[in-house]
């Protein structure tokens, strides 16, 4: 089956200018540099990475909010760059977005009913009395009372506002929703409510999600497949169970080892990989492997030659590392009983 979204060698570079009068380009931020990924109908692809890795830029490019400087994105087989007129309108309806901060994305002067009715009317999805009926249906779909249609955004709590944001996305009857950090501003107990809601809706409406987050445990919970990004590139991609169960890329293993687990026993004896230093600047990424400057198992060739995504064996994910075959042995299991050693 052909994928719903296909990202091919995506490149988003931002020019950097300096000088007020004689403005000149002094460099390029390589926010996204050569990303390939696919999203199938009805699945959740988790896109995880630290701040500045380019994960949100990938999301924005898929939404066509950001023009790629290279590569292409196919939605349902057609190239986004060529969309115009009615085809563009249909695309805008079928690909929706929910944001991290639902309050900033809701118009404070519009009642929730108006917020939800707007896309329905705009796309002519319902007419007359059916519009109000649909608004009430959407509200109960996301777990809000249909009687709340007359209230304004400030009357709701953070979790309820995120539910409104989800209902607004659903009003367009999309095929895919790009979720950019949808739960990271919410309290733990509310996060779980929203994660469960997104999972229920996916089951009922066979939606696809591109779930962008920095939280590895939320990504693990919600995604069927996961892509890990570092400095503008995908360093590992595969089924969630493979990526989390037997990560092949040293960066993925370091990320997983850094996530605290709510169990003092495990915390005490688990193996920690503590990466040294910060992420290099995307304006001047290292030549070879971009992770080389922080990698605990770096070799000489890593600094000069960039590895491409390869599969070590049939049961692992794709990883961009010269040492995929060895990395698992070099970095021991993360959660089984250990002596609590630290790898740097």
């Amino acid at each position, binding site marked *: 089956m052909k994928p719903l979204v296909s990202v091919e060698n995506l490149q988003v570079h931002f020019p950097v200018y300096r000088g007020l009068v004689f403005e000149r380009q002094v460099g390029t931020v390589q926010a996204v540099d050569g990303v390939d990924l696919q999203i199938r109908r009805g699945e959740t692809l988790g896109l995880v990475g630290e701040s500045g890795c380019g994960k949100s830029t990938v999301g924005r490019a898929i939404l066509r909010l950001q023009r790629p400087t290279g590569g292409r994105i196919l939605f349902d087989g057609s190239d986004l760059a060529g969309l115009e007129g009615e085809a563009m309108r249909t695309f805008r309806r079928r690909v929706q977005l929910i944001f991290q901060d639902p309050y900033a994305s809701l118009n404070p002067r519009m009642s929730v009913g108006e917020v939800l009715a707007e896309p329905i009317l705009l796309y002519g999805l319902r007419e007359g009395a059916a519009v109000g009926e649909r608004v009430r249906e959407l509200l109960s779909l996301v777990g809000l009372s249909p009687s709340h249609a007359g209230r304004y955004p400030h009357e709701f709590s953070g979790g309820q506002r995120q539910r409104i944001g989800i209902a607004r996305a659903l009003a367009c009857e999309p095929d895919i929703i790009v979720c950019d950090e949808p739960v990271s501003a919410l309290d733990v107990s509310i996060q*779980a409510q929203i994660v469960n809601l997104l*999972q229920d809706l996916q089951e009922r409406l066979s939606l696809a999600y591109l779930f962008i987050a920095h939280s590895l445990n939320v990504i693990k919970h919600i995604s069927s497949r996961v892509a890990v990004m570092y400095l503008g590139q995908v360093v590992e991609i595969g089924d969630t169970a493979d990526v*989390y169960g037997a990560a092949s890329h040293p960066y993925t293993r370091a*990320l997983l080892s850094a*996530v*605290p687990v*709510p*169990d003092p026993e*495990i*915390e005490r004896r688990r193996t920690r990989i503590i990466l040294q230093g910060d992420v290099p600047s995307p304006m001047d990424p290292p030549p070879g492997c971009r992770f080389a400057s922080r990698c605990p198992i770096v070799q000489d060739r890593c600094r000069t030659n960039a590895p491409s995504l390869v599969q070590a064996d049939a049961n692992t994910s794709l990883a961009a590392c010269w040492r995929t075959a060895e990395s698992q042995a070099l970095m021991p299991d993360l959660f089984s009983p250990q002596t609590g050693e630290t790898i740097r």
Partner: protein
Amino acid sequence: MSAILEVSGLTVRFASQGQTVHAVEDVSFSLEAGQTLGIVGESGSGKSVTALALMRLVPSPPGRIVSGSVRFAGRDLLALNPAQLRKIRGREIAMIFQDPMSSLNPVLTVGRQLTEVMETHLGLDARQARTQAIELMKLVGIPSPERRLDEYPHRFSGGMRQRVMIAMAVACRPKLLIADEPTTALDVTIQAQILEIIRNLQRELGMAVIMITHDLGVVAGMADRICVMYGGRVVEAGSARDVFAAPRMPYTAGLLGSVPRLDRPSERRLVPITGTPPDSVGAATSCRFAPRCGLATDLCRSSVPALRTVAPDHLSACHFDPVLVSGSAR
């Protein structure tokens, strides 16, 4: 061992639009030298206000410490005059915050801010202070400290700024470090670096640490003892091991059930806590958690449960002592 910090009956209220917010209500705990206490709670639970109240930093008005005592190394901090308090703040008790950028002065070099602490509290001269500052920067893992000392905060990354804050905090070898969400704004690999620095410094300097966070994983890795706060009150307290392995208060069990876990298969659905956290307006007449609790009865809705001992060294504020399995409020 004797306690270095003993908080008892701490109560802080805020006046807000004619209403009284009971931000912190009758909070008691104690901490021994070299120990780490984790205070866990969601937004509005009163955990940060508790920390500010310990240092007498609650903005007043609208805030007011209504009652309670904070005994630190034999003195009641709530009874000290401002001059006496200044000698303790930054020297014996230091604090680091979530956002290091807004806690650093943008128009002073990092070096100036570091040396100022030591000149003020330890009476060092400029040369000595600079030498010390370089040592401190090395201690918290800032590369090429001699050069970076003369740079301004905006030249530092988020993780590096937090290192500077930690260096300032430990400059006078405090007996107690209060860390209020120190890694919340940081990426996970940087968080791991910062937590390791705090752990190592604690071991070297023998400081007690109060770690305030909403992240159950962070406290599990750092804390010897835990206080869980909800609606301004401590609702469960005990050793980290006991609280995580056998929570006695339904809220704690609910929190543990809400978090997706890396160390477990993810097929299981999350068990969220229904409803939303309370706003703590007005005096409590019932268990603040009752509206969200699956086990609540009429008793819970009509009287406030006291924090009581339910097992050796394990306290819980619940009218009942339900048997709860960690990770689910079944």
